[in-house]
C-alpha cells in the first residue's frame, strides 16, 4: 500500500496501517537511536518510546517533509533528550574491549563491528555529533540547533570525536586524545 495512504489510515487509528509503517521504518528508527545512545537495551526502550510518540503525534504530520525524515527526527530527539537527562559518563579507557586491528588491516578496512564498538565507547557529547554529522549527514548548523550549541562547538566536538575514534581503532598510532607521534603542529 502507498505510504501516504498508510499515514492517512494511521491518523484514523488504523492499527494495521501503523504496523505497516513500523515494518517500513523500524530498522532505521532503531539504528539511529542505537547509535546515539550506544547501548542495546536503552536503544530498545527509546525506540519503542519514539514509535509510541510518533503515533500519538502523527496527526501533526502534515506531509511537508518525507514521513521518514519526520519520524527519524522525532526518534533522534527522543534519544537526545534522554542523553541530555542522563548523567551517565563513559570512562572507558581508549581501546578497551575493542577488537584490535593491525596497522595493515587498519589501512585496508575498518569493519562495521569495530566502528560500532568504537562509537559506543565515545563520550556521549562526542558520539552525538559524530553520529549526527558523519553517519546521519546532518550539517553543523542543524546539529547546533538541535543540541543548543554553536556550529563552532559542533565542529570542535566532531574533530575531537574523530581523533578519539582513530585512537580507539588504532591505539598504536595515536595518543588517547587523538594526537599522533611526538611532534604536533
Amino acid at each position, binding site marked *: 500500500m502507498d505510504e501516504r495512504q498508510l499515514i492517512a489510515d494511521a491518523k484514523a487509528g488504523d492499527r494495521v496501517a501503523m504496523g505497516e509503517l513500523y515494518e517500513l521504518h523500524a530498522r532505521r528508527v532503531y539504528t539511529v537511536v542505537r547509535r546515539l545512545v550506544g547501548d542495546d537495551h536503552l536503544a530498545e526502550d527509546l525506540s519503542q518510546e519514539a514509535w509510541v510518540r510518533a503515533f500519538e503525534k502523527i496527526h501533526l504530520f502534515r506531509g511537508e517533509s518525507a514521513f521518514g525524515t519526520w519520524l527519524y527526527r522525532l526518534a533522534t530527539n527522543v534519544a537526545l533528550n534522554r542523553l541530555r537527562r542522563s548523567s551517565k559518563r563513559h570512562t572507558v579507557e581508549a581501546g578497551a574491549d575493542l577488537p584490535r586491528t593491525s596497522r595493515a588491516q587498519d589501512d585496508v578496512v575498518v569493519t562495521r563491528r569495530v566502528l560500532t564498538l568504537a562509537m559506543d565507547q565515545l563520550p556521549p557529547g562526542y558520539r552525538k555529533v559524530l553520529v549526527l554529522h558523519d553517519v546521519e549527514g546532518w550539517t553543523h548548523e542543524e546539529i547546533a540547533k538541535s543540541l543548543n550549541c554553536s556550529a563552532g562547538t559542533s565542529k570542535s566536538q566532531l574533530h575531537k570525536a574523530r581523533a578519539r575514534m582513530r585512537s580507539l581503532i588504532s591505539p598504536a598510532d595515536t595518543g588517547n586524545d587523538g594526537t599522533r607521534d611526538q611532534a604536533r*603542529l
Partner: protein
Amino acid sequence: MTEHLTTERISALLDEPWLDTVGQEHLESCGDCQAEFERLSRMRMALSALSDEDAPLGQWTVIEAALDKAASAADPTIVPLHLRLGGRLLVPGPLQAAAALVLFAGGVFAGLQITGAGSSNEAGNRSDIPGVVASSNENRAMLDGLTQLESLRSPLQQVGMGGEIEGPRGGPDPFAATQRLARLEGFIRALRDQLDESPGDPLASAYLVELVEERDRLEEELQASVRRDGVLTW
C-alpha cells in the same frame, strides 16, 4: 615544517581545507600526515556507509500494548470492561465484603431517601452505616474498607440521594432529578479523571461503576416517563 598535524586538525582539513592554508601546505608535503588524512577519510566514508541494524524481535507487540494503554488513558469516555470487572476483583477479600455491604447499605439508604420511606436526616447520618455494619462484623479490615468506601460514597449524597426531590404531585421533582443527573455526570467525570491518574484504583473503579449504573437507571426512568406521559413528569 617538520612537525606533524594533530588528528583534530587533519579532521578539520578533511571538511574545510580552505580554512587552513598552512595546514594544507604541510599536508601536501608530509607523507605521515597524508596517510593519517587518508585513514580519517576512509573512516568517515565507512561511518556514512554503515548499514542499519535490525530492530529488536517482538518490538511491535510491545509498541501496540503501549498504544492501547495510552489510548485508554487519553479517552475518558472509555472505561474498558476489564477495568470495570477487574476493579472489583482486585479488591482484597475483606475489602470486597466491606464494599458489598456498604454498597448494599448505600443502596438501601438511597432508596429510602428517594422513596421518602425514611427520614432523610436520620438516613443521612453517615456514621450510622459503619456502626450497623460494625455490630454485625468486627473485622478491622472491613472497617477500614468501610471508611474508605464511605469517603467515596459521600458524593452520592451530594448528587441528590440525600436531598429533597419530591415533586408537586407527590412524585419526584423532575427539575431536581435532572439536576441530580447533571451532578452524577460531574462526579463520573471526576472519577474518570482519577482513574486516568491511577488506573489500578479498585475503589474508584468500583464506585465509578455504581455511579454509571445509577445514572443509567435515572436516565431510563426519565425516558420511560417521557414515553408514558409525553411530558417529563416522572
